């Protein structure tokens, strides 16, 4: 099934809006490529509109675990050093981040 140049299902501004929501910096080339790729994929998923879905309940989850409850107690050993060892920047026992409040 060769993919033809899909009709734009999402505008370039639409791509930029979604990228902002997803916290992704994109360059102009990536924006254009994503507009093309997302348009192709969205065109493909349009086939779901063929189906009559009124009265069909959505499935969010399968399996039989239900919603088990447990006591809210700490079970893990303290491991602050091991956890902070993965931090890109730390100061003492804190994660270090750029200034957020002026």
């Amino acid at each position, binding site marked *: 099934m060769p993919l033809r140049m899909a009709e734009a299902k999402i505008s370039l501004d639409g791509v930029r809006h979604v990228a902002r929501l997803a*916290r992704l910096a994109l360059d102009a080339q990536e924006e254009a490529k994503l507009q093309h790729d*997302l348009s192709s994929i969205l065109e493909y998923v349009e086939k779901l509109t063929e*189906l009559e879905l009124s009265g069909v309940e959505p499935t969010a989850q399968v399996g039989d675990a239900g919603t088990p409850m447990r006591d809210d107690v700490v079970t893990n050993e303290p491991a602050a050093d091991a956890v902070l060892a993965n931090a*890109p920047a730390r100061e003492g026992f804190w994660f270090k981040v750029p200034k957020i409040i002026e």
Partner: protein
Amino acid sequence: MNDELFRLTINDARAALRKREISAVELTRACLERISATEPKLNAFLTVAESEALTQAQAADQRLAGTQPAPALCGIPLGIKDIFCVRGMRTTCASRILENFVPPFDATVIVRLREAGAVFLGKLNMDEFAMGSSTENSAFGPTRNPYDLARVPGGSSGGSAAAVAADECLASLGTDTGGSIRQPAALCGIVGVKPTYSRVSRYGIVAFASSLDQVGPLTKTVRDGAIMMHALAGVDPRDSTCSARPVPDYESALNGELRNLRVGVPKEFFVEGMQPAVDDAVRATLKHLEAAGATAREISLPHSQYAVATYYLIATAEASANLARYDGIRYGFRAEAEDLNELYHRTRALGFGPEVKRRIMLGTFALSSGYYDAYYLKAQRVRTLIRKDFEAAFNTCDVIVTPTSPTTAFRLGEKTQDPLQMYLSDIFTISVNLAGLPALSMPCGYDSDGLPIGLQIIGPAFGEETILRAADALERSGSIARRRPSAV
């Protein structure tokens, strides 16, 4: 014992270890040497943990020499997909964003395998964040197929499949969200089991699509798959989605019996565009099943054609939420930035590869205001129809048999420019995840290039014993001659 210990199955190695014909250290060394010899061709491993593995093997030998009975996997060398957190062992998920992440804890299945006495040889390559069907999306280079180095091993558990096929480890762990255990198992000519959703704990596994992700083994034989399943399955207080049902002894279900097995063959899965050799091999296997006393009948799963579209909305939506945690603050890669917002944007831009970005974008779009009902909610409704198709089918059959993948292993680069074509290579596996059912892939033949063909056997929810029994009986019947990979 032969001098090629790395070729052993779990079942044979277990017997030899218990009889003290071989030691766990000898077996582990044989695998490590095999890894050294084959890795330059395959690139299946991202991390080889030689000293840790030998330490575990020594401990296993002590347990084997002791008076207590040795646990199920005592001294068995395994490879672990690099999506499982192993305490103190780098876990990258094949992404730059986790390149230097060292988990301070073990995934529940890793704890279970440690208790069972297993040896961890290292971490296996995969598509970044398990997103892909060829392992070409790894940030650390693709893995190659041991049957033809110009071809992909499948994905996303491509390293896990190639390593087992090439005898670098006796078995491996994988994860399957849309086919990521079964499709690479098929393309590499081995066995891969995707259990029922909720059968195995996901605690400590890097999350992709939480309503679909499952853990399972990739093994040389069906019996080995049953042995691994017994070690992996069972309730976990750390994963609230994990089922509390008792875990059966899967191995004891392998009685070699195929008589009166009702096999459903969905007409929608024998489609135009399927490689003729795949079609032929699956049909020949159905004949073997019937000759052994099974009955095959055509069934219909009418909504199958909507499964790929449904999956790529649900899986990407869930992924976009799960991957929000990679923000450069607490762990992983962080880009230089002046302020926090720029830090998030640049970290994620530089840390994620193209396919991961594409899926985050699609999922974010499908969940965004104004599109949620038209895309995400609609996909969830279609998911109900797909699930009900299977429920209806299992009223008239015990297992469903299909090809695992429409083609044998494709060439590196063949599908990388066209995401949709790549997605369609999972067309036969995806609906099983949407319905949450157990399924396995096993070898059922080879095409004219000598590339393996996979047969998929699907069961009803918690029907692992039934599919393992059928697959083992078929394997033991000798009707499918196995060939070793020729390129390693």
